[in-house]
């Protein structure tokens, strides 16, 4: 929609696609037409995404009253209409006319006329309201963080405990604590639960008892030893906490205990913070194997690559609704609580790259905006119904997602259908996220997206968003993977793609005209995206992917926004040796960095003596074939040519990157080659062959 049609004609009336995008930028009037196109109809919403550098923050407004439609409770937005000389506004969802409140035109404090068209709620599609009392069931909660640290033998040996304590200690300042109310608590788990008295008064005798360590070993009947002093205010007990974190690794250095009762710890932890609510951060280095929620190792190499593999990917135990630690079951915990999962395969503290990546990501985790006790509701124009939601949340009613903590990286996929024919010329989708931010303020973030409605088939195809379609299909595929098996999810994606191509062909070519596969310009990349998705670790048919890695890929796929999904399935690939002199510098006209030309992901592009860079959003690969000039290596990788270790390494300023050398690690070579999506890989067809199979079906 052009901003001209919005009420204030402001350029900000258009909802940025990074917040919310619809698979169809032009939607049909009826379900019949929609079914005919075979295109999936849905939204990808990333309501709390982190701001990019240089981006303007979301406008925060605090009107005397939040203006909403009387009937459908839609928030006033840039796409409403003013009627009756501007005394009433017509809701763009249910078309009811509502009173315009007086403060829109008259500022009672300053006693003067104001221009309503300057109000942020009428000019911006993304706004944040400061919520008044009616939107709270209780005063905004403080930030609460409970750290559950695995101190069993495996975790201590891998050095996880050391690095966790060290990193938390370093980043205590980045824990959101602007109002000084932030509370923290620690529980260490092996076969018993260790609690720590963090009361300020204990800092004095700390020489004798570094921290009052309370052990509850009878985990079957666990209780909270000291209800008050376990959860403490970060500001007050800062010294005690610092002392605890520096002593904790030593406390368990000699442990021989290989058991872990995570389940019980979570139950107790829940009891501890349930009065306030908050975030539980679990660091797990081994498989929880004791008591409630105990798991058994299920990894069985024999099952990999067989249809039975799915049994490993399904949670074995319904308790968690996060070496082998059964990601498939443990992610269940974050899946229903709106959280996230990070997985470090074969983590070892002796590897500095691992620790750097962990530390950087943990820092990121603390520093990013935090929203708690949130609910997310999606409203759409009359006639449109939400049918399915994908992502990490707890579905509290048919259209209300409960998010105990909002993870900014998480996006939510919503499938929709058209129940009744749409009457107006545009349809509107409004997402409202009611949350408590880390400053202890109750806020509502409202995102409004408007798309035109049409009855011509051609417009629907030319308005389709191939990236959003691929994201939504992948999310649907993950659900299919978990409920039946990977093969059927793959089949479903391919057949959906064929359906789209065939229905387009049926609608726009006369019979027998040509048998070529044709697609409109903006859907040209869809087959490539689908094929790359099928070759992604989450869907690849292969007998060598450990189920933890696979499950982690599934968990990530569930929460990817379109922006992170696309590079992840189809990495960006550049040839650095042929780039022109301007590339890599900042274009003065636009202020953007000029990138070299992106290459196709095919090994025919790899020349001898070439230097290539590939980026998939989480890892960066550097590929070279011949000995490189010494000065280049020095300037590029910030190390000496002979000092480069093949394997994971960190580029200056770019944490968590991998670099790779031709004669280096064979696994890394495979990993790089597996990202060349247009090539044949294992059982996956090359791109031309894939087209061929599409044509035949």
């Amino acid at each position, binding site marked *: 929609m052009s901003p001209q049609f919005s009420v204030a004609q402001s350029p900000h009336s258009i909802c940025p696609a990074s917040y919310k995008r619809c698979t169809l930028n032009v939607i049909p009037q009826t379900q019949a037409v929609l079914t005919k196109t075979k295109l999936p109809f849905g939204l990808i919403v990333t309501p709390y995404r982190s701001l990019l550098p240089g981006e303007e923050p979301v406008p925060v407004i605090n009107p005397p009253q939040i203006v909403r439609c009387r009937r459908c409770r839609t928030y006033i937005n840039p796409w409403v209409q003013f009627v009756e000389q501007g005394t009433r506004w017509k809701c763009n969802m249910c078309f009811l006319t509502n009173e315009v409140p007086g403060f829109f035109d008259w500022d009672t404090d300053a006693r003067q006329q104001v221009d309503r068209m300057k109000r942020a709620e009428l000019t911006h599609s993304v706004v944040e309201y400061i919520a008044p009392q009616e939107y709270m069931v209780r005063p905004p909660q403080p930030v609460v963080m409970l750290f559950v640290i695995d101190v069993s033998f495996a975790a201590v040996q891998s050095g996880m405990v050391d690095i966790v304590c060290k990193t938390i200690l370093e980043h205590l300042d980045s824990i959101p604590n602007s109002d000084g109310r932030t509370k923290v608590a620690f529980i260490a788990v092996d076969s018993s639960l260790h609690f720590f008295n963090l009361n300020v008064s204990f800092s004095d005798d700390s020489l004798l008892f570094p921290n009052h360590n309370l052990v509850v070993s009878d985990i079957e009947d666990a209780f909270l030893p000291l209800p008050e002093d376990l959860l403490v205010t970060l500001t007050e007990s800062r010294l005690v906490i610092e002392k605890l974190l520096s002593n904790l690794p030593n406390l368990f250095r000699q442990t021989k205990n290989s058991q872990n009762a995570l389940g019980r710890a979570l139950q107790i932890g829940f009891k501890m913070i349930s009065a306030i609510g908050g975030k539980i951060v679990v660091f797990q280095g081994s498989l929880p194997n004791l008591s409630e929620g105990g798991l058994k190792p299920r990894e069985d190499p024999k099952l990999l690559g067989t249809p039975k593999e799915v049994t490993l990917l399904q949670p074995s135990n*319904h308790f968690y*609704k996060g070496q082998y630690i059964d990601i498939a079951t443990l992610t269940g915990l974050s*899946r*229903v609580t709106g959280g996230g999962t990070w997985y470090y395969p074969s983590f070892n503290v002796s590897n500095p790259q691992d620790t750097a990546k962990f530390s950087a990501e943990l820092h990121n985790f603390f520093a990013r905006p935090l929203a708690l006790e949130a609910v997310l509701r999606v409203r759409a124009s009359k006639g449109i119904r939400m049918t*399915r939601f994908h992502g990490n949340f*707890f*579905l*509290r*009613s*048919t259209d209300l997602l409960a998010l105990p903590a909002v993870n900014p990286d998480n996006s939510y996929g919503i499938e929709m259908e058209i129940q009744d024919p749409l009457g107006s010329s545009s349809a509107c989708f409004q997402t409202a996220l009611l949350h408590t931010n880390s400053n202890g303020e109750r806020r509502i973030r409202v995102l409004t997206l408007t798309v035109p409605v049409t009855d011509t088939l051609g417009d629907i195809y030319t308005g389709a968003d191939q990236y959003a379609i691929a994201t939504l299909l992948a999310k649907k595929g993950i659900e299919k993977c978990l409920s039946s098996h990977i093969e059927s999810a793959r089949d479903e994606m391919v057949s959906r793609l064929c359906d789209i191509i065939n229905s387009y062909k049926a609608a726009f070519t006369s019979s027998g005209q040509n048998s070529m596969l044709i697609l409109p310009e903006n859907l040209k990349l869809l087959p490539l995206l689908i094929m790359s998705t099928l070759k992604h670790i989450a869907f690849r048919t292969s007998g060598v992917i450990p189920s933890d890695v696979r499950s982690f890929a599934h968990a990530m796929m569930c929460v990817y926004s379109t922006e992170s999904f696309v590079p992840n399935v189809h990495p960006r690939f550049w040839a650095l040796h042929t780039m022109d002199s301007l590339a890599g510098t900042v274009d003065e006209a636009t202020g953007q960095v000029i990138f070299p030309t992106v290459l196709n992901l095919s090994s025919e592009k790899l020349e001898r003596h070439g230097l290539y860079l590939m980026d998939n959003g989480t890892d960066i690969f550097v590929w070279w074939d011949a000995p490189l000039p010494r000065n280049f290596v020095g300037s590029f990788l910030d190390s000496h040519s002979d000092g480069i270790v093949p394997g994971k390494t960190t580029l200056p300023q770019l944490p968590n990157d991998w670099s790779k050398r031709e004669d280096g690690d064979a696994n890394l070579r495979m990993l790089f080659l597996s990202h060349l999506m247009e090539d044949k890989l294992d059982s996956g067809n090359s791109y031309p062959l894939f087209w061929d199979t599409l044509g035949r079906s």
Partner: protein
Amino acid sequence: MNGEAWLFLFAIVMAAVLLFTMVFFIIMFSDLECDYINPIDLCNKLNQFVLPENIGHAILAFIFLFNGAWVSLLLNLPLVAFNANKILNHRHTYDATEIFKTLPQHKKECFFKLAFYLLSFFFYLYCMIVGLLAEPIKPRH
């Protein structure tokens, strides 16, 4: 009244009770759809009734077995097996986190059971009447 009539009288009562349980389940599901109840409360409430319902049905089947009512037993066996299979696989309880995804399936299952109990209600009624009629008419003095 003879033994067979008593047996089917009991079966009728049992079928009526099971019938009402299913009606209750269906009402609760539609309440969930209309947002009158939240999924956690719903699941806590319904899960209390799942096992009694299954056990009640199993008891009925056992009584048929011991009384040699083979036709009725045969009719009930598939459902007993279905329930037992669910319990053995730990799939018999409702999961609040998945309830919206699985709701259509649960509703279908409940409607199917409802129809089954209704039909078996009339079948037992018929059997009871047949049993009563089969009683030898006592000669009048």
